[in-house]
């Protein structure tokens, strides 16, 4: 495949910059609900995406035909598009320089998925689903969902990058639905990694079943939270989520140039001095692992906020040129036919000095937020996200579970109110995808963190 890609790069016309990216994704997926196998599939998706820069304009085309002639045709199509676009654009696209990468990166984990049979997967799925259903008479619904994409990428460009990446990124969902007296409440646990079957060590299914079953049953009798400004103690998955959703998107430089709230604020204090927030592709076992981005740029550990001061945006080669900085390696494409965009990787808070107990013991009244639901954020850093599992904290003690709790507010105000960050650092929000025209696998986390935010709930 490298030879075919090299051929299309070598035969490009003069004045054409080219990125050629081969991506083969093979995915196995099993979904069991209520004892029935709803999905049992194998998907094979492969092709080449070609992006060119001609006369200061981009053109992108893709093909599933992996031959020299098909790639030549795709290159010609991309060049035609760029030439049509060039007269219409005001500012010519310019790239910041990079050092070419020639390397192979492999991350299939300690226990590669290929070591495990389809039978093993099916038995696991059916057994876990059965365990959920048999756990309690109030459990009326059950789900086990396993997705295992394995990727093979070859990223080449006319700067000389030849980066080959082979990885797998499994994720698992376990859900219980409890029902009593006409009321239905559900709870789910999810996790994802970059690696192999060891996901089940990080996410032991039997333990998780007990947790989701107990939580969904507790939710049947849960009250709503007290609405208004409250002290919140966020566990690592919530910390990762707020870092990604509420702050991270505002510092993606395409968003910055469109006028996000952080535009022009590099060097300014934007958060408590306890806060150092990072986006990095380095963590091998995290779902957002990325050694080289899809434009062929080596990724780096990017310190976004250091001791409360805004230090960096997340860049591709164009925005890096615009701001006269180095590209941060954040340009990612989900599949071969997607054009790369600025996306996050693993986004987290650096650990602090507090123990989790110290963080909780000073809280007179507040909420412990354990696992995130969905959420959205605005260009102004105004955010909203649902919390799937949360508990009252009274006089430093964890109390009753509460339902339908959402956090809202301005993320930078919340980050300014942070007064304690735990030593208990972990990355574990790698279950879900981030969507921005196309999906991207990301991760996030930090240590248990205390702050003040607006909590939705009943009016007092």
């Amino acid at each position, binding site marked *: 495949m490298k030879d075919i890609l090299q051929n299309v790069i070598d035969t490009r016309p003069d004045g054409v910059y080219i990125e050629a990216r081969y991506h083969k994704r093979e995915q196995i997926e099993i979904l069991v*609900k*209520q004892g*029935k*196998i*709803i*999905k*049992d*599939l*194998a998907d*094979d*998706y492969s*092709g080449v995406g070609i992006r060119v820069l001609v006369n200061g304009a*981009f*053109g992108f085309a*893709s093909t*599933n035909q992996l031959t020299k002639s098909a790639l030549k045709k795709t290159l010609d*199509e*991309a060049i035609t*598009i*760029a030439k*049509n*676009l060039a007269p*219409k*654009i*005001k*500012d010519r696209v310019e790239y910041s320089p990079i050092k070419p990468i020639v390397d192979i990166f492999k991350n299939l984990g300690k226990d590669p998925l290929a070591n495990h049979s389809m*039978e093993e997967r099916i038995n696991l799925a*059916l057994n876990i689903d059965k365990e959920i259903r048999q756990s309690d008479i109030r459990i*009326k*619904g059950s*789900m086990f969902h396993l997705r295992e994409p394995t990727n093979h990428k070859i990223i080449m460009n006319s700067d000389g990058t030849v980066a080959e990446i082979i990885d797998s990124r499994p994720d698992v969902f376990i859900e219980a*639905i409890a*029902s009593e007296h006409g*009321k*239905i*409440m*559900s709870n789910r646990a999810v996790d994802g990694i970059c690696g192999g079957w060891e996901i089940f060590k990080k996410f032991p299914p039997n333990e998780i079943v007990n947790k989701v079953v107990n939580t969904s049953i507790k939710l049947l009798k849960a009250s709503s939270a007290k609405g*208004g400004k409250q002290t919140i103690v966020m566990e690592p998955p919530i910390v990762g989520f707020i870092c990604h959703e509420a702050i991270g998107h505002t510092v993606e430089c*395409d968003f910055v*140039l*469109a*006028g996000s709230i952080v535009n022009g604020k590099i060097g300014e204090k934007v958060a408590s001095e306890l806060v150092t927030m990072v986006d990095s592709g380095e963590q091998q076992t995290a779902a957002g692992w990325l050694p080289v981005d899809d434009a062929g740029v080596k990724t780096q550990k990017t310190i976004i906020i250091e001791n409360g001061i805004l230090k960096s945006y997340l860049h591709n080669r164009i925005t890096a040129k615009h701001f006269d900085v180095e590209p941060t390696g954040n340009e990612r494409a989900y599949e071969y*036919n997607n*054009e790369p965009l600025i996306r996050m990787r693993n986004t987290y808070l650096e650990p602090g000095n507090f123990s989790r107990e110290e963080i909780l013991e000073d809280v007179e009244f507040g909420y412990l937020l354990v696992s995130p*639901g969905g959420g*959205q954020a605005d260009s*102004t850093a*105004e955010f*909203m*996200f*649902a919390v799937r599992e949360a508990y009252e904290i009274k006089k430093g003690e964890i109390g009753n579970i509460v*339902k*339908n709790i959402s956090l*809202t*507010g301005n993320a930078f105000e919340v980050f300014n109110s942070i007064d304690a960050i735990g030593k208990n650092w972990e990355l574990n929000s790698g279950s879900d995808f981030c969507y921005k025209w196309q999906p991207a696998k990301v991760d996030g986390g930090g240590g248990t963190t205390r702050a003040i935010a*607006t909590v*939705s*709930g*009943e*009016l007092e």
Partner: protein
Amino acid sequence: MMVNDLLSIVDPFLDKALKMGVDEIEFYLEKQKINTAFIESTKLKSATANNMEGIGIRVLKNGSMGFSSINSFKKEKIKICLQKAMTIAKLIPSQENYFLPDKKQIIKTSNIYDENIVNFKVENCIDIADEILKKCYLIDSRINIESGIICSIEIETGVLSSKNICISEEKTGFMIELGGMAVEGEKIGSWDEEYNTVVKVNDIDIDFIVEEFSRKLLQNLETVKIKPFVGKAIISPEAMRSLFSMVIDAAKASNIQSNASFLKDKIGENIANEKLTIIDDGLKSNSFASSSFDREGFPRQKCTIIENGIFRNALHNSYTANKENTDSTGHASGDYRTIPEISPTNIEIKSGTFSLEEMIAETKAGVLFNRISASPDPISGDFAAVLKGGRLIENGEIKNTLREITAVGNFFECLKTIRGISKENKSLNYYTSWKIPYILLDDINYIS
């Protein structure tokens, strides 16, 4: 069976698979051509051309099912894909209800294809993107298009199965989607969007999209903060779509059968105010969301979901229908890369008798919703929604645009407290099409 060019790709494999011992087999084929121009930071960013094709193969063997997909029409790749599907089917324990539908009479939907789109090129998308940028700038230079897509789509789908289904169809779409915010110095308005998808390129109303988009963005620039209160809600079509998606999810037979829906055992029961009627019409003329047949080759049809507040029909594919010994409603969905799921097509919430003006006039204290940011729980119906660009109503008049305010409640309970439905409605067309009026609700908890 008469097979066309698309289906002839897999036709030789049908008999081969049956000879190899499968009991039933289904091939779903998809071929797409998508041209797109992208706007980013109020500038033309790039343009792309993507040609995609693929096949999903579903096989049944001794009561077990296997599925495999491949994005190629090459014979040797289809052969491997078929073998994979057969291997999976051998490993899966036998279960009741795996089922491929029989051939049924298809009623052809109309006006889903435009020759002009077939001839549409990427440069045409670029020209329209350029026109949008110029129109936005002329309306107000404070408008920032954070991102936008202008996209022409040509799709051909086909189903060939051992149950004598042999059918294919071509359709076209043209989509404009703009998202952004107004910026004035340090002031940044909240993000908003406007979009539409049509079948025929000449049906797209660029002026309307640009004007609506600009109106929303500029309205969000000046906002005030208010104290918490309990009051009425007039919910816009955009916000209604987010909330009613939960009701449509609850009406999917797959969710009802897995006990994940408040509509379980509620067929024939009153679940909403009698003013509420919701239908889904998969055959609606001139809609990109329409087709003559679903993902399994089953005929699309009109389906009443809620009629005068009574839950009438769940949405079925053939698997869920077979479990209840009933007929599919033609709602099998998904692309060639997945086993058929269930999705709506053209949802219409029937308009009422109130005018929007009357709704506002009778509201002493409340909020006119614009857009909501929410992750409601589709199983319990609980929601906490941040209102974006919500407008305060006091003594029957619209006052200020509100800075972020949160509304809290349970939407399934709200269905019974609908006070009024407007005559006016708006079409929100994407891969699913919605036609939605404004709805007036009582006693919503607002938290500032």
